[in-house]
């Protein structure tokens, strides 16, 4: 694959290195000539000096044959524009932007960026997963369908322990996909399945029904 990376900061540098190791053709675009020189001497001649938001630079970089453009500068607005120019002018099939302000994820997607990555969001999700006080963990959002895949852990003291699934006031569109129970093979929960403490349940839930779902599963 021909992958272009805009922004030669620490993230861009390590990303370049990792993707080169995987055997991809990489071009890094960076404004600062000193950073360019350093990267070229360390990773080989793969850094082009220029503004990754400028059509002329992207033209020279052969953007129209790129399979992917990843914008990882420190400024959200620059990442947005780099992705939009790549997408609309050079028809790059996949654009990925780093966002510093997590609230920009939604804006970027609405403005046509294919994938957004926010370190804040990722770390928060990790914390959610690691800290048991959060019974509900977001695993995957399928935003264009308005659905997310979540994992919920049933605490020992939940009032729903011992109840059958059909007794729970679950939101109509929610679907329980999998029960993971200690010392058992994971199984698909049925209406008659009885909840046990420490059960981990994977479910597909409409974005707006997340709270109702949580309350129904935990009985609070």
């Amino acid at each position: 694959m021909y992958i272009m990376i805009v922004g030669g900061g620490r993230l861009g540098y390590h990303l370049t290195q990792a993707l080169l190791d995987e055997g991809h053709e990489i071009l890094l675009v960076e404004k600062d000539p000193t950073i360019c020189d350093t990267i070229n001497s360390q990773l080989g001649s793969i850094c082009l000096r220029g503004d990754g938001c400028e059509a002329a630079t992207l033209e020279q970089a052969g953007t129209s044959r790129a399979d992917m453009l990843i914008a990882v500068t420190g400024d959200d607005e620059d990442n947005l524009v780099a992705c939009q120019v790549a997408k609309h002018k050079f028809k790059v099939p996949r654009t990925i932007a780093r966002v510093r302000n997590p609230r920009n994820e939604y804006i970027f997607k609405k403005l046509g960026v294919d994938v957004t990555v926010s370190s804040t969001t990722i770390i928060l999700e990790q914390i959610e997963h690691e800290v048991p006080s959060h019974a509900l963990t977001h695993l995957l959002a399928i935003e264009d369908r308005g659905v997310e895949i979540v994992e919920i852990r049933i605490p020992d003291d939940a009032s729903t322990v011992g109840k059958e699934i059909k007794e729970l006031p679950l939101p109509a569109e929610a679907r329980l996909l999998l029960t993971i129970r200690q010392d058992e093979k994971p199984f698909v929960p049925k209406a008659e399945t009885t909840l046990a403490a420490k059960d981990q349940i994977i479910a597909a839930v409409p974005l707006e029904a997340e709270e109702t779902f949580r309350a129904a599963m935990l009985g609070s």
Partner: protein
Amino acid sequence: MKVIIMGCGRVGAQLASLLDKDGHQVTALDSDPYSFRRLPADFGGEALLGNGLDEDILKKAGIENADAFVVVTQGDNRNVMAAQIAKHIFNVPKVVCRIYDPLRRDLYAMLGLEAISPTTVFAQLLREKLEG
């Protein structure tokens, strides 16, 4: 009409002053308080300090019921992003932005933004002066 002007540089401040005198309800937005010195002493509108790429600040500036949004900060990409937020997230009826880079301007004009490139406009103006 209610107008938000993001970027209170020379152009932003001048425009704010003109629209204010015409009787419009003007909010000037800038992330540097020192910029507001450019507003005339009798400026009747509001001067709001904050980052115009932040939705909360935009809401505070009253973007939800603004009739027009003008963005003239020094950064082309800031302008492009703010203009798109105003147009596509808040559905402001009239959005105009400045993009110095003519190529970028053409691209975003194609994508439906009302954008002006002072570079192009001024070069044309000079040519007209020279060629009569």
